[in-house]
């Protein structure tokens, strides 16, 4: 027992070790585990609306294909690539932190922020186009191409705006967090011993990327439009 008491006194007092943890290892494990738990709730959060989306997709396949056909595949595709690049730069930023390179950390974090912003700008352009085309659900919704399916196309657009909107909101939050991480990185807070915040930031960013990996085919690429 005295052995243990002695052990407890031998903390290496790292400035970012919180008082209630035994050591940085425990702290790192706890925080990444916490982030994974949070992502688990995010999976079920997006999963809920996805489930609803799929129920209706199975009920109204024609309307779903027709509505997806209205989306701009080029913009969606560009955004997918942009987001994948940003995921790569994020992963490289974590690697730079692990290896203790402040310069590469900052470069990669900035790159991530820039690609994330490009994504949001493209998304904004798409939104404004849809808005002017009258594809926002509600009293101003306009649809003439196939009037019998108008209601269900509107239902699809609810999901389009809802799902991409939630995703974009996550992107905005992610960009804010990136700014904060960049600030800390600038102060040279991170190194091989302590990089949990960068890693957690990365987990979040990759998760947002994964959501888009699913949203792109679900909302833009539904095969099967029969023009009758």
């Amino acid at each position, binding site marked *: 027992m005295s052995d*243990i008491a002695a052990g407890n006194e031998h903390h290496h007092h790292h400035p970012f070790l919180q008082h209630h943890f035994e050591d940085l290892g425990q702290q790192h494990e706890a925080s990444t585990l916490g982030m994974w*738990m*949070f992502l688990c709730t995010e999976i079920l959060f997006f999963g809920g*609306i996805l489930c609803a989306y799929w129920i209706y997709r199975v009920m109204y396949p024609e309307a779903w294909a027709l509505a997806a056909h209205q989306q701009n595949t080029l913009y969606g595709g560009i955004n997918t690539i942009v987001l994948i690049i940003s995921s790569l730069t994020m992963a490289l930023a974590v690697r730079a932190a692990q290896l203790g390179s402040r310069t590469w950390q900052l470069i990669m974090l900035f790159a991530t922020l820039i690609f994330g912003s490009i994504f949001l700008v493209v998304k904004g352009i798409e939104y404004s186009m849809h808005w002017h085309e009258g594809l926002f659900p509600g009293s101003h*919704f306009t649809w003439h191409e196939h009037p019998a399916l108008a209601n269900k196309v*509107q*239902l699809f657009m609810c999901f389009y705006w809802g799902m991409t909107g939630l995703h974009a909101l996550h992107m905005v939050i992610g960009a804010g967090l990136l700014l904060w991480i960049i600030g800390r990185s600038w102060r040279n807070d991170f190194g091989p011993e302590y990089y949990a915040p960068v890693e957690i930031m990365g987990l979040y960013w990759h998760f947002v990327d994964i959501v888009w990996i699913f949203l792109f085919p679900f909302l833009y690429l539904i095969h099967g439009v029969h023009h009758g």
Partner: protein
Amino acid sequence: MTTATLHDVRLSGASTSRNYINDEYGALSWLLTKDHKRIAILYLLSISVLFVLGGFFAMMMRIELLTPAGDLLTSDTYNKFFTLHGVVMIFFFLIPAIPAVLGNFLLPIQLGAKDLAFPKINLLSWYLYMAAAIIGLVVIVTGGVDTGWTFYTPFSTQYSNTHVFGTTFAAFIAGFSSILTGLNFIVTIHRMRAPGLTWYRLPLFVWALYATSVVMLLATPVLAITLTMLMVERTIGVGFFDPSLGGDPLLYQHMFWFYSHPAVYIMILPAMGVASDVVAAFTRKKIFGYRFVAFSSLAIAFLGFLVWAHHMFVAGISVYSALIFAFLSFFVAVPSAIKVFNWTATLYRASVSWQTPMLYILGFIGLFTIGGVTGLFLASLGLDIHVTDTYFVVAHFHYVMVGGTVMAYLAGIHYWWPKITGRMYPEWWARLAALLVFVGFNLTFFPQFILGYLGMPRRYHAYAPEFQVLNVLSTAGASVLAVGYVLPIIYLVWSIWFGRPAGPNPWGAVGLEWTTASPPPKENFHETPVVTWDAYDYPAMMKAMGETQNV
């Protein structure tokens, strides 16, 4: 080593000078605290206020229902009161009550940790809870909401003229508070256990909180997205569940109950954990079938996710899926039965003390059993058609939620009150209150089973005259119950100043929380404890006590 450590159970913590309460002073030291114990106190205060508010709505309803005609309140007011009763009691009392108050206070101590894994997030949980509560209060003051706590569409999205958005937003925020609490607990249990504290040495309260947290984490996000979709639909006028677009209101119900059925287990699982700890302490015995009880918590958490559509047997789901859900619903009762039988078996050849916490738990076991077996009526498909949406359901879930959760919450408050405040409550008054709660509860809710079978539907402001006798009985019971609830508030507050000092271990109970001072020091333990004994190892402790002549 065993004896040495158990020896400490009686001796350590004698120094009461510095503790978490008097460590710092001033309002800010409480509002900005990261100490899990202080946050638990913040929760205790806010939850108590909301419990009284929810109770007020209940009492007004019971008074209205004295007569068949709707004469005291208008229909709209009555509808708002039952909605607010449900919203306040479920989202602001039952879900956070045991985890956020007792769990927050005790989990780190029972684990031998200095705090939860994420103290700042813990404080954030409380602020989110308060934000939600304040939005809820604003809604109440500015006119309320009348959709029922279930917010069924299309009534909530297109027909109600009340504050649906504000209320669902409040529930949404409260959900985040609950998610963060669950997350914090799981990480803490995995990563912050004291040396030697293996999984099978954990108190069953910890197991129960673990199972609860899993449900919080996996179910609450689906509520969040469902309410988000509802809020969007309410705001832009069309949306996801809108029948005129081809949307299906039953889809809302599916998604809502995917959360709200498991939420029932968020409310009852911690209560079962309290019951296990209290039964062990007041029988001085290890819980019979410890591992069965521990794993039955996890089994409930898992099976609880597979049964949600039993709320929808008459709603228009397919007959075949109703069969699946009914089948699974029966089996969620098995782990609950395991617990009840194991608690009962623990009493055999025990040393049963009739102190207040045990009184509540004895009541809990009986009432929870009634609540559980009446669930079988509702799982039996053909019978459910008749009794669903009637007072039978109301009685059933009050037996589980009030007879179960609230009784266990009161048991836990009394059991750990000496630890939390360092003072004993007055035993005689406490026993009287326990008796009043038990009698008042049964008088209130038992008649409602009969009312339900007679066909009185839920949420009725005015009712057919032949239902009056039973309703009067129920209201009479509610007033007894109200007295039973007011008494503890009075004597517990009284005891903070005038109660007998408790000492570290007034019950002679085993558990890390009883090895530290009452109230505990800010860091919980002066040095990290090393655990070498099993949970509820009373024989070993009694032996240690005998050896030190310190009875």
